[in-house]
């Protein structure tokens, strides 16, 4: 198949039989992906899977915004293949991941370093020729260094002064100015993708809900959609609406908390104090629905576990209306404060082309004017019927990322109120999903509060997961933070970091 031949595109929410996925030669695979990316496609996921005779089968999931369709390609590789990254930067993390997981070297990759510091899944194959029993210490790798008489290196973490997740940051500085930031994570690696293999079973949902604790609803919804696609299960309309409400409540809580944390980082106390409380109000609204502030045990394949009766719906409406009014007041003083705007504007700018090339997602991409939101582009569930217009800004700086959050709070707030007022009737759960389609793949997209979440489930002949790929938005966006710090003051790093507010465990899996 030539690079320009049309790819087998299909709707994004239907399962695909593995036998129908074209297996190309490596060069054709590479040129097909490059051709499609240059024509406006995007890589949703690129991952390896154990293939026949100790080879690795690479799968690429490409997404097309215009038609809301996806295409899946495959190729078999042995120990190396020509890297995509030099021609297609958005593949860079996926290829590092493939190298680490399968010991397959993407030849020509400009930045081939481990990302999670675990041994290869394929015994005897290691991309960095490490011995089988050798201890792999996270954060120990060769870092990029700037040399010179006045250049100095600042290393931060993995243990920080605040109570946050562990990560290691290396700054190459000239005085207060940052030339380069390199981020090395992996301290939170728990092996979620491997633990999913053989599922679904009793452990699967708790695992999915803990991929990133602040995105429980997002990941659980993505998982449920994948299982529903593979089992042909239909979700009742009322459950779809409640899933949407829970997902938007998660967004409201985190966005409100982020605006407060941004205010706190510049020492602006009023918004910091109010938004800290308001985040709790939104979390408590989720708790009113399902008993968990983080929406655990709410989403299940086939629907949701908890219904919202009319009196609880009314209570929810009253609480949310009050909280939304308070957020409007707490953020108005933030936007009106000149001293805050002086800190936010022109700090940590990510140019739109960089965001586009690196495949950034979520508010970080929308703040650069990259209009990308899977709630509109690849709608599932309630978003097929109720559109939330994507919110974008055009500056790409800390202000842009903060302001997009505020715009999203307003739109999500309206959406949630409207959905609760007009919840469709009927049950909230269909009968439990039957066995999964064997030897098939399902791709599932959810716009979590940090950006698009992509889950890819691949089943074996028995209908169990042979591979489960999770692409958390943090996996794509950490490089955006490194780019935002170029030529910035090192004292602005915490502010830039907060404006992205990425997940360490979502990245480390």
């Amino acid at each position, binding site marked *: 198949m030539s690079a320009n031949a049309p790819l087998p595109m299909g709707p994004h929410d239907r399962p695909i039989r593995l036998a129908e996925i074209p297996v190309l030669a490596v060069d054709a695979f590479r040129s097909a992906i490059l051709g499609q990316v240059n024509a406006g496609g995007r890589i949703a996921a690129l991952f390896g899977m154990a293939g026949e005779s100790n080879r690795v089968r690479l799968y690429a999931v490409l997404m097309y915004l215009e038609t809301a369709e996806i295409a899946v390609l495959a190729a078999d590789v042995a120990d190396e293949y020509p890297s995509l990254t030099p021609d297609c930067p958005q593949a860079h993390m996926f290829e590092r991941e493939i190298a680490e997981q399968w010991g397959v070297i993407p030849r020509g990759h400009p930045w081939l370093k481990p990302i999670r510091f675990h041994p290869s899944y394929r015994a005897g194959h290691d991309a960095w020729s490490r011995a089988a029993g050798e201890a792999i210490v996270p954060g120990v790798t060769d870092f990029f260094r700037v040399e010179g008489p006045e250049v100095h290196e600042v290393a931060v973490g993995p243990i920080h002064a605040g109570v946050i997740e562990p990560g290691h940051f290396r700054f190459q500085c000239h005085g207060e100015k940052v030339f380069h930031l390199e981020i090395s994570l992996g301290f939170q690696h728990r092996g979620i993708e491997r633990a999913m293999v053989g599922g679904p079973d009793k452990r699967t949902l708790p695992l999915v809900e803990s991929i990133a604790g602040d995105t429980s609803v997002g990941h659980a919804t993505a998982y449920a959609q994948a299982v529903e696609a593979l089992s042909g299960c239909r979700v009742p309309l009322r459950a779809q609406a409640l899933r949407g409400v829970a997902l938007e409540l998660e967004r409201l809580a985190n966005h409100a908390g982020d605006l407060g944390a941004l205010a706190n980082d510049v*020492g602006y106390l009023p918004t910091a104090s109010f938004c800290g409380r308001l985040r709790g109000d939104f979390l408590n609204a989720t708790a009113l629905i399902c008993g968990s502030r983080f929406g655990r045990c709410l989403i299940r394949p086939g629907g949701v576990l908890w219904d919202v009766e009319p009196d609880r719906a009314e209570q929810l409406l009253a609480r949310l209306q009050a909280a939304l009014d308070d957020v409007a007041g707490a953020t108005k003083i933030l936007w009106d404060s000149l001293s805050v705007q002086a800190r936010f504007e022109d700090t940590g700018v990510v140019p739109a082309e960089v965001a586009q090339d690196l495949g950034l997602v979520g508010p970080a991409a929308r703040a650069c004017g990259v209009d990308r939101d899977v709630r509109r582009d690849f709608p599932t569930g309630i978003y097929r019927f109720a559109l939330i217009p994507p919110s974008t800004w055009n500056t790409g700086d800390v202000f842009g990322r903060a302001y997009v959050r505020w715009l999203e709070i307003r739109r999500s707030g309206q959406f949630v109120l409207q959905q609760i007022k007009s919840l469709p009737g009927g049950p909230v759960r269909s009968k439990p999903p039957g066995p999964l389609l064997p030897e098939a793949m399902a791709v599932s997209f959810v716009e979590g509060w940090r950006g698009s979440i992509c889950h890819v489930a691949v089943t074996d002949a028995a209908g169990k997961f042979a591979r489960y790929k999770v692409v958390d938005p943090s996996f794509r966006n950490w490089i955006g933070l490194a780019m935002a710090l170029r030529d910035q*003051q090192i004292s602005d790093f915490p502010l830039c970091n907060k404006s992205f507010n990425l997940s360490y465990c979502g990245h480390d899996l």
Partner: protein
Amino acid sequence: MAGGLFMTLAKSLIHPILALIFAPLMLGVIGRTKAILAGREGPPLAQPYHDLRKLLGKGAVYSRTTTWIFRAGPMIGLASTIVAVLLVPFGSCPAPLAFPGDLILFAYLLGLARLCTVLAALDTGSAFEGMGASREVLFSALAEPALLLGLAAVARETRSLSLSGMQAAQTLSAWSGAWLPLSLVAVALGVVLLSENSRIPVDDPNTHLELTMIHEVMVLDHGGPDLAFILYGAALKMWALAALLIGTVLPIRVGLPYTWPVDVALSLASMLGIAVGVGVVESTMARLRMSRVPQLLIFATTLSTLALVFEFGGLIR
């Protein structure tokens, strides 16, 4: 006559005693003001005292890379700040130590305290502490001309080179004659007060983000009694600069020979007012971008210079 001397001595010791006792309370008042403005109840006013007691009861841990400089830093720092407090008059009581030119000694005793903190920070060899030390030195070098030129303007106005002499000559009637240069000096010293005590908008005393700190990052490696010395020294420094501001620039006192207890009370109330003012500033504005801090300090220096020009030129009298 001996009774009069004894009285003067007793009066001059009132301020050091008040300062040693009440300096941490200023931090408590600032914290409480911020909490109330943020809609919270906040920690008790005596929280800084509890913190000091807790720290004094702890042992200290020293890194193997540090030397005696690291241990000497907090002690010399606290000692020189206490001596600086002895130079500052309060109410209508003169300072226990007063001589022509003591204002220069005052500025450089604070400088000595800073030097010791900076050396102790550099002694740890940590990248953060080096960064904090570099920022501290830059900003204090810019704050120093604002302080000294401002005091020079007041010295010219009061025809005295001693802080106690300035305080004695600084009466309401004298102030009303030179309100413009003195107001400029008051604003400049206010900026110096915020900057030297690492308050917003220059530094954020509450931040946990090591990359943005200035003063706090330099003392990250200190613990136990050393940290208590540093915190107490910081409280005393705040007190000394605030007392300097109200003692030499703002004549908030009656100034008659037998009203000194009233004047001490008025000065204490002014100290309280300054603490509340700092709390209000911290509650209503964000911290400046670090690259903008020098502009603020140069602004303060400009005000001081302008005041000095007015004083010498007699432009506005």
